[in-house]
């Protein structure tokens, strides 16, 4: 798998977060790997819009009240799937609209006006939802406060080789 990497200069003046979903490519669709560290490699850090995107994905997929000491975090999206409520694509849209409200509230509550615009959440639109067997494929467009304009900065890696 080709691993895209940013440069140190691109990270100047930004705060970094650990990369939680690895394997993104500039164009096209690819299944990401959820891992802080891939086997045989180092972990990676990220910033900018990707930091926001992974925050949104984690928030969306975290079930409400599943964090014992932060019960308000997360959404009911996965809970609805577990409960068997979601049976059609239309169900996904309706559940998503509920969950997005919770996610928006939680994400915006931890942001401030001094944060970079491309790291601040504005909205996330579910563009398509397809149910196929036991798989649901969703296409979501995450919009930051920066709007359509964004600079994608790839993760910064450190060689695991010694």
């Amino acid at each position: 798998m080709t691993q895209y990497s940013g440069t140190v200069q691109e990270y100047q003046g930004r705060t970094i977060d650990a990369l939680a979903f690895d394997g993104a490519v500039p164009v096209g669709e690819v299944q990401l790997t959820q891992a802080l560290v891939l086997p045989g490699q180092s972990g990676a850090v990220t910033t900018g819009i990707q930091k926001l995107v992974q925050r949104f994905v984690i928030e969306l997929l975290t079930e409400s009240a599943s964090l014992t000491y932060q019960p308000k975090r997360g959404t009911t999206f996965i809970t609805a799937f577990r409960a068997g409520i979601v049976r059609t694509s239309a169900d996904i849209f309706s559940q998503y609209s509920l969950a997005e409200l919770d996610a928006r509230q939680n994400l915006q509550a931890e942001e401030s006006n001094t944060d970079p615009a491309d790291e601040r959440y504005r909205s996330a639109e579910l563009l398509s939802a397809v149910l196929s067997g036991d798989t649901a494929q969703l296409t979501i467009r995450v919009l930051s406060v920066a709007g359509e304009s964004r600079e994608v900065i790839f993760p910064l890696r450190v060689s695991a080789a010694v």
Partner: protein
Amino acid sequence: MALSFSDFEVTDLTQLNSEDVNQLLDRLATQLQELNPSLDLKRGVFKDTLAYYHAVLETAIRTNLERYQSARSLQQIEADPTLADDNVVNEVLSNWGVVRKEGTKAAGSVTIELSANTSVVVPAGFAFEANGLSYTASSTFTARTSAAQVSGSGDRLLVALSNGNFAFVIEVEAEAVGSQYRLNSGDLIIPDRPIANYATSYATSTFTEGQNTETNAELINELQLGLAAKTISNRTNMRSWLREYDAYSSVTNQSIVGYGDAEMLRDQHTIFPVSYGGRVDWYVRGQEPLQRTTQAVTATLISIAGTNESTWQFSLGKSAYPGFYEVDSIRREVDSASDSGFEITLDDRGNDLTGEGFLPDIINVAEGAYSAFQTTTIRFLDTVSDTASLVVGDTASYVYDITGVPHISEIQSLVSSRDHRSYAADALIKAPVPCFVQVTLTINKAAGDAEPDVDAIKNAIIGVVNQTNFIGRLDGSRILDAVHGFIQNDISVTDLDLFGRIRRPDGSVQYLRDADSLVVSDDPEKMVTSKTVQFFSEISDVSVNVQSAIPTAT
């Protein structure tokens, strides 16, 4: 989860204080941010995944440390003993020689009356219930109809009673530890399953054992006793000395009256109306509940008044029941214990100061009342026995119930022994002056409310009464507080009535009645004050009326 020096475990991660976790998380995020400004610790993976779980684990460790330190600190334990872990408190206080009294299960005999002379089997573990508490047969018992059939340890002979029933006796044990399981002679105890030809069943005599495990708060109260020298010196030393003896672990409240106390009359045996000291009256409540025991006696006929009316008399020496309070419910051996018994016409107390060893200075009945030197002569009217063939001077066997508290004689012997006795004083062990209390109250509920657990309420009430220390008053608010633990919704408690009967050391009786508090009068010349009187109540003394008097809210 037990926490002790030898068994230190991490707290269950779901039981932490949420505020503690989030405070620590914020602090961790701030500190890490200061250490590395380029990390995003306001949100995201570093904060929500890494720092969050670190905060959870760190909070668990800190919580354990706090508990550990709190438990190790006497100051912290004393501040709130309920928070400290039992094992840790045990280990800390053992450094001062204070050992927790472990609870024991009550055990005793139960008489079962059958309506027919037929053999029945009560298997081991067979359940009985009394006052809402459970008991089990300690082994298998078989009621036999003839003495020839009695061979094994579980075989019991059926004895014919005057009421036409047949009785046999078995042994039972309480389901759990605690003083509330102690039954007194005559208390009803009912089988959970049918027994063939069953008529009734009751405690044959007062149950033994049956003590509560000391709570942390009680143990802390004893700390001073652990530090004090175990000797008959000042009040703390004396209580500490007594606590050293496991045999007297059932002893609860104590009051020590000595020089300078108005209740001390024994140090005024002089022509001058002054106290000269050297005397100690040590009032010892040998156990929390009143002890009621059934004993057999041979009585002598002293007069005949009619066909079925005869007066009998017997005497109880100082060893019959040292320190006893009262004799009641005298009946023939063949009569059921459920009979109310014959009327007592005379209770003539005295003191027996004969014998070897040191004898306290006692000059009248009142001074020796409820001590190990007390004696009595009891006269009663038998209204059942046929007097046709009797002549004055005949003897017959009777049984009687007697109330008191245990250990009075044993402790007196110990105190009077040469090794322990103060060389400058004489100490007289006495059972506290009794105030027998009856409690009546009404619970008002709506028709839809669940029935309150009356048995549990009664047990809670007698717990309050019997645990009241030498404070000279029994307040209704404490009783209501206990009752409120068993009721909810709009249920209320009204019509509280407290009735007390003090049997003074001189044999006279004082009645107290109040809806608010029973307050012991200050009569030191009669040795009746807050320093000498203890309240006693049995389950049969408590009456709880339940009525549906509250309208259902609409």
